[in-house]
Each structure stands twice: as structure tokens, then as C-alpha cells.
């Protein structure tokens, strides 16, 4: 089932890229339909898998697959709300690349130690993944912003210039996504600390994952406060968003470090 969904996503990605070049409404509508049905199929597939595991994804493959699902779901909602199919050309190919690589990784992570099996753990993990997905979309939007600004500043008004939404819109979208991502990230950290504090052996070990997550949190905290209090916007926010996303990516991947028994924090 997952492969059906990923093929749908792949076709949608191609359609969105085609839409970027040739502004045919049909491409955008077909892409939207394919993403929508793909999400439904993947939701069923993921739902049945996760139900067996106590409602949480286990292992890198499932983690990636879940992130892709959330990422595309966010994009889908944004596209329905704001009609920005151009964004699909940036989000969908990235999502497809991640999803296909996750299919290559042998699934089946190690079972989570019973010490950590608490009812709140699925919530912790789900919110963490939602945060990552939101920040990933924000990073995509930031990339669009930087590309658009380059066109505007460089005064060569090419293909992207006429296709991309306005700088203001991209900046606002970035703001909202980062805000939601930051809230999710904060909740993740708090619940994470809550779990860890319950078991003294796990309490803040300065593992790469912890450090990376903390750094990412600090970056986004600084970014949001600079936005709110110093009026930052535009280019510098976009660059910081992408930097924050990279750090968060490190945090996410290090959670699946095969050399350490880090089923722990997941």
C-alpha cells in the first residue's frame, strides 16, 4: 500500500514540476488529487502498522515515512487553503526522495524497551514528527523565498519570478510554520525531559540528539523572538530557518544511530 502511495506522490511531483514550467491548471489539479488520495492510502497503511506498535512509529524507515506523510499533509492543507500549487514543485520531489530512500532501508526497528512504554510516548513522538514536518515545509518555503528574492534583487525576471508567490506571502507562511513547528518542538522537549527524568539513567546525557535538538530549539526561539521584537523578516529569517532545519535533521537522524541503543529517546 505504501508503494502505491509513493508512486502517486512521484507522479504528483512530476506534475507539479511540469506545472512550474508550463502553467497548466490541469497539472495542478491532478497533482492535488494524487497527493490527496496518496495521503489517504498512506494514512490507512501507517495507521494499521502503528496500531500494532502501540501507536508509534519505530525505526528510521517508519519515522521517515511518517514525516513524509505529515509534510505532505501540511502542504496539502496549505494548497487547499491558499492555492499555491507552485509549492508542490519544491515539497513533493523532496518528499518523494525521502520516501523512496526510506523504502530502501530495511524496516523493523528494535522494539522499544518496556521501561519507556508509557501512554504519553506516542504523543511525544507524534508531536516531534509534526514539528519536524512543519519546520521542513518552512525550510522549503524559505528556499522559495530566497530564490524569489534573488530574482527580484538580481533583476532578471525569469521563470520563477512569474510563478512564485509574493515575498510577503512566503514570509508570512514561514512565520506561521515556524511558530507551529517551534511549539511542537517545545512540547517535544518538555515531554522528553519528563520521560527522561522518570528514569535517572536516561536523564540528560548530552547525546548528539539532545544537543542538536536543543540547538535547533534555541535557533527557532531566537528567530521567533527576533521576528516578534526586533521586526526581523525576509531574507535573514529564511536563512536561519534553513539552518535550523538542518540542525533538526541531524537531531532526527541521530535518534536512529544504529551504534547506540537509542530506541531510548524515540
Amino acid at each position, binding site marked *: 500500500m505504501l508503494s502505491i502511495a509513493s508512486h502517486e506522490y512521484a507522479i504528483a511531483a512530476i506534475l507539479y514540476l511540469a506545472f512550474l514550467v508550463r502553467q497548466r491548471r490541469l497539472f495542478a489539479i491532478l497533482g492535488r488529487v494524487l497527493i490527496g488520495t496518496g495521503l489517504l492510502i498512506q494514512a490507512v497503511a501507517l495507521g494499521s502498522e502503528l496500531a500494532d506498535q502501540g501507536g508509534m512509529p519505530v525505526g528510521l524507515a517508519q519515522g521517515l515515512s511518517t514525516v513524509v506523510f505529515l509534510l505532505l499533509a501540511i502542504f496539502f492543507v496549505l494548497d487547499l487553503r491558499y492555492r499555491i500549487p507552485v509549492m508542490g514543485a519544491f515539497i513533493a520531489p523532496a518528499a518523494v526522495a525521502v520516501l523512496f530512500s526510506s523504502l530502501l532501508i530495511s524496516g523493523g526497528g528494535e522494539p522499544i524497551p518496556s521501561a519507556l512504554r508509557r501512554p504519553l510516548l506516542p504523543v511525544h513522538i507524534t508531536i516531534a514528527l509534526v514539528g519536524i514536518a512543519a519546520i521542513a515545509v518552512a525550510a522549503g518555503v524559505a528556499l522559495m523565498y530566497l530564490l524569489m528574492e534573488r530574482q527580484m534583487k538580481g533583476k532578471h525576471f525569469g521563470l520563477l519570478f512569474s510563478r512564485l508567490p509574493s*515575498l510577503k506571502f512566503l514570509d508570512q507562511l514561514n512565520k506561521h510554520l515556524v511558530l507551529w513547528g517551534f511549539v511542537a518542538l517545545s512540547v517535544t522537549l518538555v515531554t522528553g525531559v519528563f520521560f527522561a527524568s522518570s528514569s535517572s539513567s536516561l536523564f540528560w546525557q548530552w547525546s548528539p540528539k539532545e544537543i542538536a535538538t536543543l540547538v535547533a530549539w534555541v535557533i527557532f526561539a531566537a528567530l521567533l523572538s527576533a521576528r516578534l521584537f526586533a521586526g526581523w523578516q*525576509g*531574507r535573514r529569517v529564511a536563512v536561519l530557518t534553513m539552518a535550523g532545519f538542518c540542525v533538526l535533521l541531524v537531531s532526527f537522524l541521530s535518534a536512529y544511530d544504529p551504534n547506540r541503543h537509542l530506541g531510548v529517546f524515540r
Partner: protein
Amino acid sequence: MDLVCIGVSHKTAPLEVREKLALSEGEISKVLQRVSGTVAETMVVSTCNRVEFYAVAESAEKAKGALHSVVVSLGGDRSLEHLYQHHGDSALVHLFRVTASLDSMVVGEAQILGQVKDALELAQRVGAAGPELVRACAAAFASAKRVRSETGIGRSAVSMASAAVELANKVFGGLEGRPVLLVGAGEMGELAGKYLRNAGAAPIVVINRTRERAEQLASSIGGQVRDFAELHTSTILADLIVCSTASSQYIFTKESVSPILRIRKFRPLFMVDLAVPRDIAPDLSELEGVYAYDVDDIQRVIADNSATRAVEAAKAETIIAEEIARFVRSRSIRDGVPVLALLRARAEQIAKAEAERTLANLGADLSEKQRRSVQAMATAIVNKLLHEPTSRLRELGADQSANRLADAAAELFGLESGSPRLPDQPAAPATDLPAAMASRGSKR
């Protein structure tokens, strides 16, 4: 009768000279009355980029002398250095080119047509313009309309303003409630201001060196006027700045704008420089959050580049040449052979031909007397038919309505090919342009 035109424009005279010669409506009326003693007909076109005096007189020299003395009284001896002078067909060509916006600072801008129309209207109101000027202007208006509808020249001016709005939209997403600052109230600035207002931008602040002109523009687009000294504070408040001054130096430089940006707290600042020479230093774009564009950049946004614009301008010149040839032809018909004589000649020719055909059909069995009475009848019909119009036209004399009647007769009987449009049926305002563009009144 000779048409004479002398004047100054943005091409020949610096702003200081143009400012001195620029006249308000009241001043124009006075000048017209003063000159009309020496010349048969006269009219003054005064816009922010040109001041032109047209006159029709028996002798071109006499007309020039009268107009020169007006120029000297307004702008002093020095202003004569910047004058251009045309007479005869060359004056006609100038009038046609100006009206068609080929001589404008922004080639293809539509306001000049309305401004010349206003000038003629005013001259007619004070009784300074007569049939010669009215006919010439009517033909010029018709050819300007042809230029507008048959070439893309008008599009380039309009598209400059709309491209600026499009660019601004790419920064701000929408212009609703965006504060605008217009620096310089030139033609292009006015056009851009109107477009921005139509796009919902507000409030609009106008800063101009001459406050009077700023007030005119501000009232026509619903804006506010600030003094030049308030440029700094106005820049802090504005999100969009449109520059179109005649300043030879940069008004905005990197050094002057970067402290303002700090106060603005990274709010994006969109700047359009429509002035030549430029008002905005080109390195301003390097500042974060500043999007500055000059005329060339905006041209690049517009798909049709300067090459096609040159083609359009060439097309426009061809149209004007055609229209002038047509006007000159119909004028010579009108002037050289009076309509009545033409009409009579045509009628007599027809009567003679018809009588001869009838006689030929009847054959040789008619007596000489009978032949003569057939011919007499034909001539009598012509005379009786033409008696009424002839006496009526003579009664009216050289009055303007006589001209109108004569023109109507000429057209009705097909006495001349393609008579120019008559002044009393002026060309309707161009409907292919937004109403904002058709509005007039950028006179200083």
C-alpha cells in the same frame, strides 16, 4: 496663412526655463488676448514638460515677432536661447507629433492629447483660435488616436506603470493600505500614482519641488502634500517610493537610506525610479529589504523590449506622415478652390454630360431651338438647385459655421477625398485606456 509654433520642451530647455514660461489657465487667456491683435489665430499648450505657442498669421515673421515678445516678457532674453521654432508644414508636423505623444518625455503617455485638447478649448473660449487651428488640431487629434490604436506605443507607457505595480505586488502580495511616497510629480510619477491608488495603496504622499504642482497631483489622486524637507520622515513611513524628479543628482543614496532602514525595522522598501537621469543610486539594491528598480529594469519586466518600441515609434511616424499628407491635401482643396465653385463646376459638368447624352439619344430630328432649350433646362436645374445653398453660404460669410457648412457640402457631394474630422465632432476619448489615464490637467 501660415502656421507658426515656437516653444520650449524637456528636450531643449532646463526646468528653470520651463518653469518661468509655464502658465496657468488665467495667464494663458491674457497672453492669448494680447497676441490675438497681431495674429489671426493663436493657442498655448502648457504642460510640465513643454510650453508651446501656436499662431496662424499672414506673415510667419510677424507671428514669430509677437510670440517672441511674449516669451521674453515671461522668461527674459535668455529663454530665447532654448526656443525651437517651426513654421508651415514643419509646425504642422510638430503639432501632430506632440499630440501623438511622440515628443513626450515618456513616449506614448496619453495625457498630452487631453492637454492639447484643453489648450484648444481654452483658445476657442477666448476667441483666439479660428478655423485654421481648429482644423489642424482636429486632424492632429485624429492622427493621435490612430497612432494610439494602431501601434503599441501607448502600451509601453501604460505598461511601465502597471509593471511597477506588478513588481511591487511580488514584494508585498497586495498593495491594499500600503503607504506610497511620490517624489516628483512628473507625468510618469502621476501615472504610477494613479495605478498605485487604483491598486488600493494608501495613503499617498506627494513631494515636489514646486508645491503647487504637488498639490494638483495630490488632489487628483487623493493624496497629501509634504515639503521637500520632510523627505526623510516620509521615507520612514512609506513602503513604496516612486521617483520621477528632474534632479540631476541622486535623491536616495545608500548612505542616506541605510539609517532610515534601521528605523524602519527591516520592513521591505520598494523603490521605483522613473526619472532620467536617475534619482536612486543603483547600489541601493544591495541593502537588505530594499527593492529598487530603474526605468531599464522595469522595461525588462515588460516583455516588449526597446527594439519593438522603436518599431512602434517608426510605425507611429508613418501614420503621422500619412495623416499630415491627407490634411494638407484636403486643406489645399478647401483653400485653393472654394467649395461652391467646386460644387458648381461638378454640377455643370454633370448637367452638360446628361444634356448631351439626351440629345444624342434623340438623334438628328431635333431643331437647333429644341436643342438649345434642352441645354437651357439642364443649366436652369443646376442654377435653381444651387441658388439656395449659394446664397446661404454667402450670407454666413467667413464665419466659422460657414466653414462647417462648406465642409459638410464638400463631404456630402464627395468634393474632396478624406476631409479631416471636424472640430465640432471631436474624437471621443480613447476608450481602450483606463479612465484614470484619460483625465487631464497636469498643467503647471
